């Protein structure tokens, strides 16, 4: 979920103290090379040209490497290389989670197992301290550089719209790949997830988040990170505070809505004012005082300090009365949204029938029209995305559209239809692609497509359909006229966004 970004701008005074990285940390650093390939957002059966990403990972035991999710996103091949060597070691992605931008790789061949002593995770890094960043130079030698912590905040990950505890570092080193490790006192302080050479500021995912991920990932089943599912806003306006009966000065945020299906939706209500979360007082901008890192957005109390399934106590004001309630935390998956974001660019499910391309709307699909996508895309879909994307009317509902038509004689007269919302197929209501596949499987084919606010159904000539599908597949070179994700894949961690 996306929190309203209120960034704390705190500048910390420089400190000194760097200890050279010990030998075991040096030998644990590996280069990760990933060949990736994304599917085309419009023609989901097509692939974009493959590309190469290069970054780093860290050996966490003899056969596992920790790296960033973004580095191995849509990977086709992942290879590792040790320091001062040229040999490539094949690896697979065992688990990746874009909600925290971390991935766990497994070395494929047992013979390639690497002797290593386990790395240690830092327990504390002074918020005004400095760290050392380790990476390879062009000759695969270790390169190290000092970095000063300048800011600690809960902010959106650089590669996905999820909040996380992030350290900003000012460094002299020209960071040459994500996943470069930051060390402090001979222990892992964090992984670099992005670097801007213009400002020389790198962003680091700190040890606490990494530790959380590793402990979870190495002990399946993976539980992931918790979210509260609360859409909220700051509560500064004294008039609104008086209207809501909030007397506590400077405290409290306003609940606007809760994501359907989450624990918060069961106990929180719109217009509740949250004064305290899990024992921490929340100010009117949504910050709390963290004992380790100072003033932080309260999302850290959920993602950084809790797990899915935990129940936390809240102090709220509801109808001007202060009370205490419990909220169950959940892991919120992108697929639960009415319009999933699909930041990881997972191949979209689709069905091509009689040249009609049927699929679900995702944020990625809409935004692939370019920076001006809000003007390019039909205003109805833009409006749905901007105002209702998190809130399906019923669990599992998505927006199924006729995204376009591949012209052929069977679809004459329908070819101008684009980005229109499908309400029913063969007269049966459609809420998501699962419905689409169920209908086409049980009724052999699509006979009739009903579109929103369009008084005439699109009808396909059944006598021509089978032949036409074959011809369209050949003519437009579509290797498969449908792509349906395997049913169980939705519970596997890999598929999770």
């Amino acid at each position: 979920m996306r929190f309203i970004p209120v960034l704390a701008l705190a500048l910390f005074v420089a400190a000194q103290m760097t200890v050279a990285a010990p030998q075991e940390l040096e030998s644990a650093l590996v280069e990760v090379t990933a060949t990736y390939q994304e599917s085309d957002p419009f023609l989901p059966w097509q692939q974009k040209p493959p590309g190469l990403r290069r970054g780093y990972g860290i050996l966490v035991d003899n056969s596992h490497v920790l790296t960033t999710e973004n580095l191995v996103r849509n990977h086709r091949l992942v290879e590792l290389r040790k320091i001062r060597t040229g040999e490539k070691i094949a690896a697979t992605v065992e688990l990746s989670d874009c909600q925290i931008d971390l991935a766990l790789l497994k070395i494929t061949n047992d013979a390639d197992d690497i002797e290593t002593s386990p790395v240690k995770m830092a327990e504390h890094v002074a918020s005004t301290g400095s760290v050392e960043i380790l990476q390879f130079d062009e000759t695969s030698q270790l390169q190290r550089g000092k970095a000063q912590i300048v800011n600690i905040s809960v902010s959106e990950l650089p590669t996905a719209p999820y909040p996380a505890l992030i350290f900003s570092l000012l460094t002299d080193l020209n960071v040459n790949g994500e996943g470069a490790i930051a060390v402090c006192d001979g222990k892992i302080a964090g992984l670099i997830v992005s670097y801007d050479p213009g400002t020389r500021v790198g962003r680091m995912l700190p040890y606490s988040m990494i530790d959380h991920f590793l402990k979870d990932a190495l002990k399946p089943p993976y539980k992931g990170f918790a979210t509260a599912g609360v859409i909220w806003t700051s509560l500064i306006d004294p008039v609104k505070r008086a209207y809501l009966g909030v007397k506590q000065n400077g405290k409290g945020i306003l609940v606007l809505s809760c994501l359907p299906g989450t624990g918060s939706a069961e106990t929180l209500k719109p217009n509740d004012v949250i004064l305290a979360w899990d024992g921490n007082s929340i100010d009117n901008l949504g910050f709390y005082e963290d004992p380790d890192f100072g003033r932080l957005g309260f999302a850290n109390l959920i993602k950084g300090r809790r797990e899915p399934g935990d129940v936390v106590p809240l102090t709220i004001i509801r109808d001007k009365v202060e009370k205490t309630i419990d909220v169950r935390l959940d892991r919120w998956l992108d697929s639960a949204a009415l319009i999933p974001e699909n930041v990881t660019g997972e191949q979209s499910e689709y069905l091509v029938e009689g040249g009609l391309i049927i699929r679900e709307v995702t944020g990625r699909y809409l935004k692939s029209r370019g920076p001006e996508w809000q003007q390019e895309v039909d205003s109805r879909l833009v409006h749905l995305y901007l105002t209702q994307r998190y809130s399906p009317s019923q669990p599992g509902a998505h927006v199924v559209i006729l995204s376009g038509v591949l012209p052929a004689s069977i679809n004459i007269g329908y070819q101008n239809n684009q980005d229109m919302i499908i309400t029913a197929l063969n007269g049966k209501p459609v809420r998501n692609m699962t419905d689409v596949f169920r209908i086409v499987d049980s009724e052999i084919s699509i006979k009739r497509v009903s579109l929103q606010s369009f008084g005439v159904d699109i009808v396909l000539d059944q006598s021509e359909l089978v032949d036409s599908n074959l011809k369209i597949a050949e003519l437009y070179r579509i290797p498969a006229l449908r792509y349906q994700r395997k049913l169980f894949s939705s519970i596997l961690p890999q598929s999770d966004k």
Partner: protein
Amino acid sequence: MNRAKTKYLYVALLLAICLVVPRSQANSLSDAQASVVKIHVTIQREDYVMPWQGGEPVGATGSGFIISKKRILTNAHVVSDAKFIEVQKFDDSRRFKAKVAFIGHDCDLAVLTVDDPDFFAGTSPIKFADTLPSLSDDVTVLGYPMGGDRLSVTRGVVSRIDYNVYTHSEVDQHLVLQVDAAINPGNSGGPVLFKGKVVGLAFQGLALSENIGYAIPLPVLNHFLRDIEDGAYNGYPELGVSFMTTRNIALRRDLNLPGDRGGIAVHYVDPFGSAKGYLRDRDVLLSIDSYPIADDATISLDGNAVLFAELLERKQCGDSVKFKVWRNNAEIEVLVPLINPRDPFVYRNIYDTRPDYYITGGLVFAPLTREYLRAQHKNQGSMNYQQLIYYSQYAKVDGLYSNKDEFVVLIARLPNTVNTYSESFINGIITEVNGVAISNLKDIKKAIEGQKEAFNVFRFAGVNDLLIMDAGNARRADREISLQYGISAREHFREAR
């Protein structure tokens, strides 16, 4: 809405250019050119961002020509929002004050009269042709375009006769005569002659193109002049149906439509159109006034295939149109009485009308208009702006207009301590004020003035957050805000609503 941006209107800004133009040779055009007048206007457009004040007055010139009954025919856009109009005859230095007698914004035509009888002394009305010229016929354009003060004559041929959007309203489509004679700013309102008789009235061009000039053709001129014969302009009737071709065999079978060609299927009936209550979804229109309608929506008229709408173009409000309709497996006849509904959700350009607004506590409310959307174009990335676009495009199709006379928007905040925290609500559509559902601007005033409680509570479409205002403070601040920002009146409502 976007398409119209590429066109521009030919009103030349008044330029102080004193070029001596050689006197034209007397020729067969001399009769006609004596009837062509130059129109000097001062235009003041309304300010839809600060509606309590007018925009900057600007001078402009256009052309017109004398018709029967001592009248002058010109473009509506030449004299729209005009505060002062003067006309000047060919080779006559005197200017005479003129006024608008009739104006048709949907067809961009206006009739002017001059009180001083001296003006028409010695003039004779221009002659109208009986029929339109054919393609490649030579035509002459007379007028007072930019580049000189005196009459200009350009020649060319008829390049095309087609339907096009009239830029003046940005919504209406009528027949258009396309010529390759030069038509430039200032030509607007001048006659297009074929063999010395009027076949059109020059009115718009196409940006980024050469040798494309557009004129309003004879049938549209005649339609307008016939319409005003009863002393009032009623405008073109609106049928109000959207349709699709019936070329698809499977669709024809689904509609049980006999034969394999012909007819168009209605997929949407506009709630404000003439067809409402007469035609329905899935009706197939087979003929119009006994002209068979082909499946591409054309009819054969005088040997030409033209859109069936051309037949509607010839009708006046109060006339009827007879359709042969295929409905429920039978052919029936449907007589549709034609009306011109005052449809508030069609978002034409507005002229000669003071904008409505209402200010309370420094919050400025106004109905959604095309003018306002245009003024806010710079904010197109914002969620609220996108919502306005969606509401303006889908008001009727998605039923957003139900229980609404208009959409009322919070268009601005005049900053004052009473409204400090209202910025994020700007461009929001008001749904409720103090528990009262808002269907028009006046409802807001009623809800505010009727409030007995301490707070004014505003709710907006698509937003869960509330705008809360201290009712007493807002009332007290009204005067101060008016003084602060120079607001002469805190409200304006049109008389008849």
